[in-house]
């Protein structure tokens, strides 16, 4: 949560949202069996979190045509509303649902919250956000968006300006569509993955064409733009007036589920006019659809996953690794992918003597490392050695196992990981850091955390070191918590004592020590501090030391650590002696 909320609205200027606003002053009713709407209306955040994590569609409407956010705003549950918004609930005032939410907001604080979220980039997963940025990185696409927003006065800061766009941060498009003279830039791989129509066209007619003109009068530029934007970001935003055109395009592109939803929504919009709370200029009315409303197999990660599987199979075939093919072909058959085996790969990565066929646009969008590598191909040594047997450009990566690379590719294509071997964890963390895939660490941590509940104290020490090194906050916090709660157990563990020696000493400076427990919801310090300092904090919290006794308790803890370290020194020299003895004998 950002510490400041900036919104341009004179009504709301005087209103400040503080953290205390987000907790209810009265105990709220719990609805342990309620659905999304009941939970939102009651403000039952726990139930809501559970429901959202289980993957319900946050923008679904109930039988009275209301969305969950509407109930949360109506009842004034700021915390519930924020949770819904963070999970992608639509709050743009130009949409039917968003307009109702704004209108229904209990007080100005709720309105301010809605405005603040309206002003932010849409909440998207890292994969969708990265591809959206690549799409908008193309000059023509960006120009259209800015012009459209200028006309609509919708504040949607794209968030590109701040990221320091330089020539290397753009990934060039490989196909340009011209609709009535206006260009849309795109990448073949993405379009092929999302639409069978484009896939077929790119394999046949449009194989070698960089520029494709559409001259049909009926084809509307804004509709096609919004669809292609949707292909990249799993988020559809379209003017209500363009929906008819969009439905037609969907039919051609064989995006059946999207077409069904749009056709249904068009009927709804027709009736919505009668229900509208105030007159809105028709051309300003928008319809926004989050990918969550579509069946899972029609969303971006699944589409890219299919592409990835084909690529992996092809990579394996190239190597004639039969067992590898066997392993994969089973999952291939279940996916019922059509006859075509073209994976559209335009590069390959060589890891640990294996070649992986990949797609430049996805790798470059996800990882700035790959973007730079692809851009720098010519400048360095790597540009020189062409592989004779393979025409694709090839990158070679060292210090990495093929399995870990496969995991990494899986994450890059799908934003998720199915299962992670804890033994691989350090390597995966290493890869995530090295390839600048920072969000991946969280995903891995989420997969691993349940397994950490059963490990021994000695192992936990290792996990702590590991997570501290790679900055995996979730695991680090978990380890520190466990150690602080069971400090005596750990003090008895030799591995823990040995670890203490390798850590930098805690800062003796008491000014760094917080004298008050950190406020709930306060901004978590992004820079991780000294591990032992953090441990001391945790310990003080766990021991629930009284506020005035904190300094004394901290001193006690420091003393304790010193003693443990002395013991560790002793053990170490003993060990050395033993080893020396072994050697001498």
């Amino acid at each position: 949560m950002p510490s400041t909320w900036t919104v341009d609205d004179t009504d709301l200027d005087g209103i400040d949202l503080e953290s205390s606003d987000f907790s209810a002053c009265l105990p709220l009713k719990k609805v342990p069996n309620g659905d999304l709407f009941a939970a939102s209306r009651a403000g039952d955040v726990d139930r809501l979190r559970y429901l959202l994590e289980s993957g319900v569609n946050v923008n679904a409407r109930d039988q009275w045509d209301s969305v969950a956010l509407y109930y949360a705003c109506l009842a004034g549950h700021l915390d519930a509303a924020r949770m819904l918004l963070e999970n992608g609930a639509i709050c743009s005032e130009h949409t039917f649902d968003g307009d109702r939410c704004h209108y229904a907001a209990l007080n100005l604080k709720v309105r301010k919250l809605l405005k603040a979220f309206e002003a932010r980039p849409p909440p998207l997963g890292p994969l969708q956000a990265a591809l959206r940025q690549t799409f908008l990185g193309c000059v023509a696409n960006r120009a259209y968006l800015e012009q459209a927003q200028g006309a609509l006065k919708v504040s949607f800061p794209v968030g590109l300006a701040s990221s320091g766009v330089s020539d290397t941060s753009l990934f060039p498009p490989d196909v340009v569509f011209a609709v009535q003279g206006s260009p849309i830039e795109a990448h073949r791989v993405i379009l092929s993955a999302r639409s069978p129509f484009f896939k077929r066209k790119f394999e046949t007619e449009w194989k070698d064409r960089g520029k494709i003109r559409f001259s049909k009068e009926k084809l509307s530029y804004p509709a096609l733009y919004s669809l292609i934007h949707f292909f990249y970001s799993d988020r559809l935003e379209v003017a209500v007036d363009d929906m008819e055109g969009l439905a037609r395009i969907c039919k051609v592109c064989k995006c059946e589920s999207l077409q069904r939803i749009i056709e249904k929504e068009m009927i709804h919009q027709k009736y919505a006019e009668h229900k509208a709370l105030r007159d809105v200029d028709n051309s300003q009315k928008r319809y926004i659809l989050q990918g969550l409303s579509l069946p899972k197999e029609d969303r971006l990660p699944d589409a890219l996953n299919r592409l990835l599987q084909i690529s992996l199979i092809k990579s394996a075939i190239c190597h004639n690794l039969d067992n590898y093919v066997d392993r994969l072909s089973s999952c291939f058959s279940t996916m019922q992918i059509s006859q075509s085996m073209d994976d559209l790969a335009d590069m390959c990565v060589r890891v640990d003597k294996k070649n992986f066929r990949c797609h430049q646009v996805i790798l470059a969008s996800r990882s700035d490392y790959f973007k730079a590598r692809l851009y720098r191909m010519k400048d360095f040594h790597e540009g020189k050695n062409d592989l004779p047997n393979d025409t694709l450009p090839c990158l070679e990566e060292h210090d990495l196992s093929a399995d870990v690379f496969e995991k990494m590719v899986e994450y890059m294509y799908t934003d998720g990981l199915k299962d992670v071997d804890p033994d691989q964890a350090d390597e995966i963390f290493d890869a995530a850091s090295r390839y600048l895939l920072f969000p991946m660490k969280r995903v891995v941590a989420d997969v691993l955390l349940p397994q950490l509940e059963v490990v021994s104290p000695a192992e936990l020490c290792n996990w702590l070191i590991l997570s501290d090194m790679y900055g995996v906050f979730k695991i680090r916090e978990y380890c520190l918590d466990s150690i602080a709660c069971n400090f005596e157990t750990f003090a008895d563990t030799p591995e823990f004592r040995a670890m203490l020696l390798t850590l930098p000493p805690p800062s003796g400076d008491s000014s760094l020590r917080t004298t008050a427990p950190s406020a709930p919801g306060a901004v978590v310090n992004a820079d991780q501090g000294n591990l032992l300092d953090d441990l001391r904090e945790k310990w003080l919290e766990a021991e629930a030391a009284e506020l005035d006794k904190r300094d004394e308790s901290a001193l006690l803890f420091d003393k304790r650590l010193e003693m443990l370290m002395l013991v560790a020194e002793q053990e170490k020299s003993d060990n050395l002696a033993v080893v020396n003895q072994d050697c001498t004998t």
Partner: protein
Amino acid sequence: MSAPKKKTIQIEAFRHRVVADPKYAEKTWNILEHAIHEIYNHNASGLSFEELYRNAYNMVLHKFGEKLYSGLVATMTFHLKEICSSIEAAQGGLFLEELNRKWADHNKALQMIRDILMYMDRTFIPSAHKTPVHELGLNLWRDVVIHSSKIQTRLLDTLLELIQGERSGEVINRGLMRNITKMLMDLGSSVYQDDFEKQFLESSADFYRLESQEFIESCDCGEYLKKAERRLNEEIERVSHYLDAKSEAKITNVVEKELIESHMQRLVHMENSGLVNMIVGDKYEDLGRMYSLFRRVASGLVLIRDVMTSYIRETGKQLVTDLERLKDPVDFVQRLLDIKDKYDKIIGSAFSNDKTFQNALNSSFEYFINLNSRSPEYISLFVDDKLRKGLKGVSEEDVEIILDKVMMLFRYLQEKDVFEKYYKQHLAKRLLSGKTVSDDAERSLIVKLKTECGYQFTSKLEGMFTDMKTSEDTMQGFYANVGADLGDGPTLSVQVLTTGSWPTQPINTCNLPTEILSICEKFRNYYLGTHTGRRLTWQTNMGTADLKATFGKGQKHELNVSTYQMCVLMLFNNTDRLTYREIEQAAEIPASDLKRCLQSLACVKGKNVLRKEPMSKDIADSDAFFFNDKFTSKFFKVKIGTVVAQRESEPENQETRQRVEEDRKPQIEAAIVRIMKARRVLDHNNIVTEVTKQLQSRFLPNPVVIKKRIESLIEREFLERDKGDRKLYRYLA
């Protein structure tokens, strides 16, 4: 969780590399340092990006970020120093090229280094609050290379020298200049401004100050402006080619200031070639240039406008006060129109139709036209002239154009009611004498006046046209009714004029000949028979008559004369000689009219149907007149015009003015009452301004007259003075 042991080993193994090898950091850094050297030496193709990135990543991961960063700074500084000395060593003209080449090299190297150290850029630098690699590279380049004592001034001098060279006509490498200035901008706009732009502007100012001095001594105004314009365009072009776009405003400012602003006065007033000369010589191109250049400077246009205005006023004043010119009203107005056309053309083609200039022109015309109190009369005379004969054979569009121009002059008049008065008179004469050429033109002018001044202004004029029309019908009716009884007596044509619509003239009766009197009587009976309750008065001073006369040798002529002349001539039916006294007695025509009519009958050569004794130009009371039976003319019809004073004579003029003043009185009073009715209480000054405002469209009332009117209204108890404040008036009625 079956193999805790194995994992421990793994982690140890990982840490091992670092911990076990105390020289790890040193070694890795050496690799990277070598790589940076290679990159700067263009040997990057021997390096592996992946390996270098991995090394940098590991260094940061194992907390050697600080070492990496400081090493980077040191290495880069080392290279930049090297580059710096090689640039310094470059000879003469090669200096800039060397600088440019090295800058390109550095940029490329910097990007490669940035990509290699990307992990540091993302993690270590933000948390340690350091400068990002790319920015660091630029900062170092700025501090080490650009700000090195030997390069900084040399760079500046070289740039300025080249620009100076280009100004004096040399061809320089613009692409190179472009790159260098772009470099300065890349280093931050402050670098560009401090290290280049400021001095550039100063030296430009010096240069143009000198040059403008030189120009102004040697060139005339037009030439100077041409040069200034060329210089200005050169500078703008220079900015577009190789300077920052933001510099354009600044450099043009300098040029404007030095070339135009500081010599503005002198240029405008330059002898034999200044603004006035350009106007006189209709030098549109020069004027246009002056306009577009001076517009760039504050108060530049004001200066042009002021000089032009005062010149127009001066010449206009000369024109309207030149007694010689005033003799011919038509020529006078034509001249005014010519002047107006001239300035319209200048403003249109050289001053891009600038509104402020048009306003200045209008106010100047208003100023000098009203200097001459007879302007309204003359303008009306001009129209009269045009409508009498001037429009013959002229197409309708041209008529419109001429009328529009007249209307324009009319707009400048302050005393529009005076114009109205004269126009009415002239129109009446035209209508009654049947001299109008085109009815359409007449009506079109009246429509124009109506749109300009409103319905009131023209209602009487329109009434005159209606009268003419109804009279025609009446005459037809008259002849249809009584035509049979008339026999072969004289034919009568009567125009029945509504009193009030027509200019009032003193009724001068005269004794009509008996033949006429009888038919007149018949008409009177007919007219009063069809229209009851009306009164008819004969306006003998305005009529005309056609007489058939037989002269000595039997030749017959038809004489076209005025009613007065007819009366006089009819007297000669009975006798050949009459003295002035006798004629005066018999006809009872007012003396001035009689004299004028006798003059036209006896003194105009070729039309002298009477002979006068003694033969002199002027008519004296003692003169005697004879029927001139020796009269000859090659035409059958002889038109004997009255000797009409085209312009009013001085006493007549006075009289007209008097009448105008009289007419104004009720208008002023009406205005006062209107105002007071609405405001109830008002002080004197406010009344005067309000009245002036209301009547402005017709004339400018004199405050003294207004005061008199107020007093008269007080007397008649429309208003009263406030008891306490004598300056306040109250409305009573």
